[in-house]
């Protein structure tokens, strides 16, 4: 019996120790990361908006909490060589940093799945979600949406990608008659394909990685993607190429929006102001993000891995 009691005690002790360690290390990591962000904050942007920061409501006072799904290069992704908050890189992260700096707030990135990002804003866990969201009617109903921002050619150009072996078979709407087009569920590409390729068969998938797999597998003839994503996919999958077809993209769809909690107009306005002020830098940010994205696998002309 003594043995049993001591065993239970031992388990308890170990568990409490572990919990202790877990929480402390997590906290330290967070603090360290935020400190760095603040240190890196530019002096120019931060100074001019301190007045505005006073009226801004955030979940944690003094902190801008941003939900994002960092598995979507080059918009937001994770640099596995880094630790803590520094791991999160990409266009939206740079943008979030800029917004936080200009509002005089510390930036706290909350990584989570794409679906969860919206929940985080809705539930008040995060102040905003910046994860390459397109504007849609439904989103506008449930969230405050920011003004549009453009991530280089990522959203301006919407294209089809296909197996390189197809050549220019799917370059025109004519050639696409009856072809199977894959698009991410509830995405801009879904609406574009429905509108502009009525004679093709639209098939939906839930996540881009799966879509690429299905394309390689022959389930689709093409998939509809934003140009930037398409380039990242092609960079790592030499058997895939653009089909030559481009969608005509309506003004209101050409940008991304940031989602904020419904009714938090103060923060929304402040974010819009920061967006307007940063317009000139978007292309630079996008190209920087693109440059560091992508796994370093190089291929020769035949599509074989070059060593």
């Amino acid at each position: 019996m003594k043995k049993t009691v001591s065993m239970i005690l031992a388990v308890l002790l170990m568990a409490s120790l572990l919990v202790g360690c877990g929480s402390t290390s997590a906290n330290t990591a967070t603090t360290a990361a935020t400190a760095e962000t603040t240190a890196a904050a530019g002096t120019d942007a931060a100074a001019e908006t301190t007045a505005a920061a006073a009226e801004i409501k955030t979940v944690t006072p003094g902190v801008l909490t941003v939900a994002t799904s960092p598995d979507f290069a080059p918009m937001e992704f994770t640099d596995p060589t880094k630790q803590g908050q520094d791991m999160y890189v990409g266009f939206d992260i740079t943008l979030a940093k800029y917004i936080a700096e200009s509002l005089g707030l510390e930036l706290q990135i909350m990584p989570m799945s794409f679906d969860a990002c919206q929940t985080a804003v809705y539930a008040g866990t995060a102040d905003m979600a910046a994860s390459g969201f397109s504007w849609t009617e439904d989103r506008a109903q449930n969230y405050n949406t920011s003004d549009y921002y453009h991530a280089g050619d990522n959203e301006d150009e919407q294209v089809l990608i296909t197996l390189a072996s197809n050549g220019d078979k799917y370059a025109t709407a004519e050639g696409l008659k009856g072809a199977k087009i894959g698009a991410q569920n509830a995405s801009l590409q879904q609406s574009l394909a429905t509108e502009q390729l009525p004679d093709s068969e639209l098939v939906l998938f839930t996540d881009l990685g799966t879509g690429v797999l299905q394309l390689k597998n022959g389930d689709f003839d093409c998939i509809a993607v934003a140009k930037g994503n398409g380039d990242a996919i092609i960079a790592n999958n030499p058997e895939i190429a653009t089909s030559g077809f481009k969608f005509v993209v309506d003004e209101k769809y050409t940008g991304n929006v940031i989602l904020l909690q419904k009714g938090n107009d103060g923060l929304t306005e402040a974010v819009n102001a920061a967006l307007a002020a940063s317009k000139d830098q978007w292309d630079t940010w996008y190209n920087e993000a693109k440059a560091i994205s992508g796994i370093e696998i190089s291929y020769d002309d035949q599509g074989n891995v070059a060593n």
Partner: protein
Amino acid sequence: MDFTLFLPNLAKIWSQYWKLFLFTGLKNTLILTFISVALGTVLGTLVAMLKMSKSRILRFIASVYVEVLRGTPILLQLYVFYFVLPNIFTFLKLSQFMWVSISLCINSSAYVSEVIRSGIQAVDKGQTEAARSLGLSEGQTMVKIILPQAVRNILPALGNEFIMMLKETSLASTFFLGDIMTSYLIVKGVSYLTLEPLTIVAIIYLCVTYPLSKIVDRFGKKMANPNSYRNRKVKAGGKN
């Protein structure tokens, strides 16, 4: 589908990210699992006691607790613990890692409580009768006679719970908590390759779960034999 690139890509991803998969992913998965099962065991013991108590109200509360946690998807529970509860218990100031851990602990406690309850109930009723007939009270019987025997039913089942939890913690990747599945998401996010990193994840999981389940199996078989109680005073070779 063209598989000629599969192996080279696999090798490339492994050589580039093996530290991420093993030192970050596997490590965090093991830590999360251990915390969940250890705390889940403590909490589960409490719930099992409630469920076997004489009070009808306590039994009812424990039943609802167990049924709700076992009857709803663990992802849903994670959402509640991550998004809803922190807003209610704002004074707790816990990190996201803690909330997810708590969610997994509580989920695990529901399963463990059933493991403990059935482990106790699997002890022959005659043992209770013999102890009570000697004049031992209900509590003395539980502590001296039933629990020491129930532990032998419970430990192997706890091993299985550990293996199950090892896989369940992959849901922590919904919040990028750094477990093995998070490693996969990270690699997928930059490379747009899915099958290759998933294959690596599968192999890592199998490398852990297969030997573990073999050990639990052997242990369980040994424990199931009632004649296997070791003689503590006399060495096996020392009888007669």
